[in-house]
């Protein structure tokens, strides 16, 4: 298997994972967003060998890997067991969240199912940016639960100011809105670390972005 190690986590090419995991992660596959546009899924993943490793692995001073892979029984069955795989963009998401955390000055808690979710997760609909590990659902900041409009909007304003380019889900009860968490998302972020494996260069594909 083509692989490399970056900062103690192995980077794997999703194409070379076993079939059950490939079917669940859909590396390099496409999802349709709500407007009917094609969004290409990440191909490279960090491999997390155990829950202990996820708890120990620091992605940013106040964020650890476990917070981004804490899913429940709705996750696809092959992905409920270790080793787990999370798109490499998770490190960028953590770095951006760290900036937000610095500004609010309080612990920022990501909800279960609110970090990375696979395309086969039962809660995934359309091209959810959770499938890119580039979105988080924050349910609590410090001692405040984000389950009321004023509290969510307060922190949404801070996030917009602190994180240019971030998209915040509007507050509301209907589909496409959030009323019990703050959804911050950095778009369809794909990271290919320097050490990531890859295909040999093929000049015939030059100019073809996909």
């Amino acid at each position, binding site marked *: 298997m083509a692989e490399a190690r970056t900062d103690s986590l192995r980077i794997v090419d999703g194409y070379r994972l076993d079939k059950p995991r490939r079917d669940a992660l859909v590396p390099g596959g496409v999802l349709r967003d709500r407007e009917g546009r094609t969004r290409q899924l990440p191909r490279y993943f960090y491999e997390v060998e155990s829950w202990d490793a996820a708890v120990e692995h620091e992605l940013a001073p106040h964020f650890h890997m476990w917070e981004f892979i*804490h899913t*429940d*029984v709705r996750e696809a069955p092959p992905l409920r067991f270790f080793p787990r795989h999370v798109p490499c963009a998770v490190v960028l998401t953590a770095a951006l969240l760290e900036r937000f955390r610095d500004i609010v000055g309080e612990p920022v*808690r990501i*909800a*279960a*199912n609110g970090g990375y979710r696979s395309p086969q997760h039962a809660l995934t609909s359309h091209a959810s940016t959770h499938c890119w590990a580039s979105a988080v659902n924050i349910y*609590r900041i410090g001692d405040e639960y984000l389950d009321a409009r004023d509290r969510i909007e307060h922190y949404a304003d801070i996030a917009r100011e602190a994180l240019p380019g971030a998209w915040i889900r509007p507050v509301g*009860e209907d589909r496409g809105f959030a009323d*019990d968490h703050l959804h911050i998302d950095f778009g369809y972020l794909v990271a290919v670390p320097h050490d990531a494996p890859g295909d040999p260069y093929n000049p015939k594909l030059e100019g073809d972005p996909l």
Partner: protein
Amino acid sequence: MSLPSALNRDRAPSLPSNLDALRSRIESIAQKSNARAVGVALHDTETGVELRYEADRWFHGASTIKVAILLAVYGEIDSGRLVPQSRLHVRNRFLSAYDGSPFRVLADRDADSEVHAAIGKTMRVNELALHMIATSSNLATNLLLDLIGLDAVQRTIDRFGLTGLDVKRGVEDERAFQHGIINRVTADGLVALLGLIAEERAYSPQLSREMLDILHQQEFKKGIPARLPREVRVAHKTGDISTVAHDAGVVYAPGRKPYVIAILTEWSPDAGHRSSTIASLSHAVYEHLRGAPEHG
């Protein structure tokens, strides 16, 4: 009146004279209580005695419907779709059975704060099942129901041929309640349901025992167990809202097989003596089955 379909009908018939005495006693307690309605069903696995007093009358189910949800959750475990250790996101947001609008379980109306404290995190299915029964957590109930779906509960009810159980929505779904969508039970229905579990016919003896273990951890003991001797163990589920108070369970007295009993009561909202009425009815049945003279 027909017998509960899931009860074992091969047992010896009960003695009418004995049952007449018990029925009179139940009637007397019911009349003195000022309850609007009382329903009692009894199935004794030791003697085969079955007693039915207004046992096919429908009552608001209150929290007794959680036993049907427990059975359905274990159905998912039996089928392999869940394992008891499956983790579930604790989220206080549910959709009304009436129109799909969101609602929440109010923490100050829930008997259990532990599940609320886990919001945002995960809890195991078996932990939630325990909270749903032992402390009657409404949040745990809605989480489990949301996970398996109302259809799964209905499939379970159908699978075992149970009648007298009508599970239409989660708990605290006020919008559904206002539009007449309520969970209902009969005493017959609850006895049939608990009989399945007590006789270890619910999926497998192992899973039946696991459900019984959960029911044995009931923390609200002012109903069926209240006036029974200390050595008598009861695996049960209570249900209590402003207009009804119920208790249904399996009673294990030393030296005999258990009996299954459901006591359902309906009241005006300001009425008292609910639990003591259930306890008196339970005591009367216990005394009757052990052949002892009954005391008021």
